[in-house]
């Protein structure tokens, strides 16, 4: 018994020592010290903006784009001398696209008083997992990628600068009917919040406009063989195949559809809008229409200039997720500058942008919010042509 007691004491010591020795294992307490003073009165500490997304794992590409987009804005602000003499820092939280990790990331941001607002998360499931914590802590969660309709419901602290899936699904159905001349659509959907939400909205709208959904098949993220589903589609003779899911499975579907002799155009949501899609599907990607929140080609001179700056700064082509994260960071930092360096001030500033007149002129379009924190933004359509996404010849007004 004595020996086990000694070990227990050792264990307690271990626990306590991690308690005191926290700083080396986590950056949070470190930054927390600076913020503790900075958040109050002294202008010494840095202003911290959080950015949360899938920095590792399957969706790491998206996370990296978000981080770079936000970084771009932070660097611009710092180059102008920061905000009120204080430097702005970016703190990155990796939710790996997993809601459980997202809770931990949210907890970490929330417990660091220097963090004044968070750009993120990307996956709707992650945004939803973080929501209760951000709400309690009183910290703005500003998603630049979550499109599930429920993301902003029931919290005053949650906003986004991207449309919702119900709107996107509606637009996709109309586009198929009006501009692709489709009468019969076969649907593949990811058995996940995103895939189901988008597909449901699409089906509802399709019913209204007499667009027939001839078949619907779900799949899991780890599915790689879509041939059996495709051969059930084949018999139903669809004019268009909708892929309500993410780019990696969409690429498989495209190449296997072409291989099985299904040459009809593909239609996808913004989950398919990624260069990885074209890279993976190769020639099979041609003739795929996707909806997207942003297209550089339609963004005018300002977008082109930004595109160049981004490429210079990071040596990589930006995409829509970088633009939206940049906009989110810009809006939040403007809030800090104009309304004050507290979490509450930032929230009130963002919430007050509630009409077209007060809209924030983002790179990715004018942004303003309804009382939930959702925003109304147009859906653009892109088409794969010559192994590149180009604006589709016909857009939804």
């Amino acid at each position, binding site marked *: 018994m004595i020996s086990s007691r000694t*070990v*227990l004491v050792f264990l307690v010591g271990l626990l306590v020592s991690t308690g005191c020795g926290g700083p080396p*294992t986590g950056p949070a307490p470190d930054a927390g010290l600076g913020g503790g003073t900075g958040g109050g009165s002294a202008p010494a500490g840095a202003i911290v903006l959080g950015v949360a997304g899938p920095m590792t*794992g399957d969706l790491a590409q998206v996370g990296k784009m978000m981080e770079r987009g936000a970084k771009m804005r932070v660097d611009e602000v710092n180059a102008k001398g920061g905000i009120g003499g204080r430097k702005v820092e970016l703190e990155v939280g990796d939710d790996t696209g997993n809601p459980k990790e997202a809770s*931990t990331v949210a907890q970490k941001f*929330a417990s660091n008083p220097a963090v004044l607002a968070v750009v993120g998360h990307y996956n709707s499931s992650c945004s939803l*997992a973080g929501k209760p914590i951000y709400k309690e802590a009183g910290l703005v969660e500003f998603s630049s990628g979550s499109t599930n309709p429920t993301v902003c419901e029931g919290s005053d602290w949650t906003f986004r600068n991207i449309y919702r899936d119900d709107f996107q699904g509606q637009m996709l159905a109309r586009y198929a009917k009006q501009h692709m001349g489709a009468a019969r659509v076969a649907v593949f959907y990811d058995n996940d919040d995103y895939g189901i939400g988008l597909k449901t909205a699409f089906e509802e709208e399709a019913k209204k406009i007499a667009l027939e959904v001839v078949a619907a098949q779900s799949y899991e993220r780890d599915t790689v063989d879509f041939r059996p589903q495709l051969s059930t589609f084949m018999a139903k003779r669809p004019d268009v195949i909708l892929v309500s899911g993410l780019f990696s499975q969409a690429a498989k579907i495209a190449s296997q559809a072409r291989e099985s002799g299904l040459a009809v155009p593909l239609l996808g949501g913004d989950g398919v809008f990624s260069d990885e899609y074209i890279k993976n599907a190769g020639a099979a990607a041609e003739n795929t229409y996707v909806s997207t929140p942003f297209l550089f080609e339609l963004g005018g001179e300002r977008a082109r200039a930004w595109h160049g700056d981004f490429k210079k700064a990071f040596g990589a082509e930006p995409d829509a997720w970088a633009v939206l994260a940049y906009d989110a960071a810009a809006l939040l930092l403007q809030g800090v500058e104009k309304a004050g360096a507290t979490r509450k001030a930032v929230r009130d500033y963002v919430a007050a942008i509630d009409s077209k007149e007060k809209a924030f002129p983002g790179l990715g379009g004018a942004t303003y919010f309804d009382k939930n924190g959702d925003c109304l933004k147009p859906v653009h359509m892109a088409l794969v042509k010559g192994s590149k996404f180009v604006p589709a010849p016909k857009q939804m007004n």
Partner: protein
Amino acid sequence: MTQRKGKAARSSSGAWRAPWGWLAFVAAAACLPLTGNSYLMGVGIYALLFSILAMGLNIMTGFCGLLDLGYVGFYGIGAYAAAVFMNTHELSFWVALPLAAALGALWGTMLGAPTLRLTGDYFAIVTFGFSELVILITRNWTSVTKGARGFPDIHKPVLFGYEFVRFNPTAFYFLALALFSLTVFVMLRLESSRLGRAWFAIREDEIAAEACGINLRGYKTLGFAIAAAFGAMGGAFYASFSGTLHWSAFTFSESVLILCMVVMGGLGSIPGVVLGSCLLVMMQEGLRPQNLAAALAPLGVPASSIPGELRWIVYGALLILMMRWRPAGLWPQKNVAAEFAEEADSAP
């Protein structure tokens, strides 16, 4: 060898003594909220939660010697059951928690009764398949579990009019500590009871145990049900603490993680299992690429160059190394250590 066996038998049948070590541990753990750091408290909550789960799994794998690869299935059942009880049926957390645990026990019995007559390998596989089915059902039974989107906005416990807070989780921390203490108490009582001794007998030698009049299937099923109840209780706590549930929190890798905790601490050893859980939860935090990069900052290692898979490689290596060189764990239960030593002696 006979000497060792005698000693082992004595320690497992010893009279109940006040567990001073445990009291000291709980008292020390109760001081953690004094730091006021809610991130640390969050880590502490996970350490306690996983200790509860690991102690539950330990009944099957440590006490009875049966590998349960789907323990997380009960954890998931408990979590979703509690969420449904609280949100859909508007029950209070204090009612939902025992109900969830009871439901876990029920499932444990239903799954265990037909399976436990088989040998260990088949048992391991059935439990594995079961936990995968639990995931599949939580994803697709949308009307009840809210499906793939996850179960949102789960109610928080309310105690005497005080509603628990997630962001500053002191109350949750003490709740976890209370559940932890309850679990330890039950485990200590079980270990020194007739039931516990029957389990050890089954683990050491099934045939001999049966010859001594131990009802193998009955005792194993009972063990499985109790283990499942603790898993489900942990799940109910997790549901309320995290506020949202998503199927991805209940995958096979969680089962492996819990197994890793049990193996590392010591199969069958209650303090060992708790030690294993605390160490692994801390390791999980420490091995996050960002935290590791912060710790290695003087060396200038950027977070992006540290693979996120690192911790799983470490866990896998731990399992292999522990099994090879220290199968009884860091803090072995006395008779397990004796058994392994015996194996080593008798090995050619």
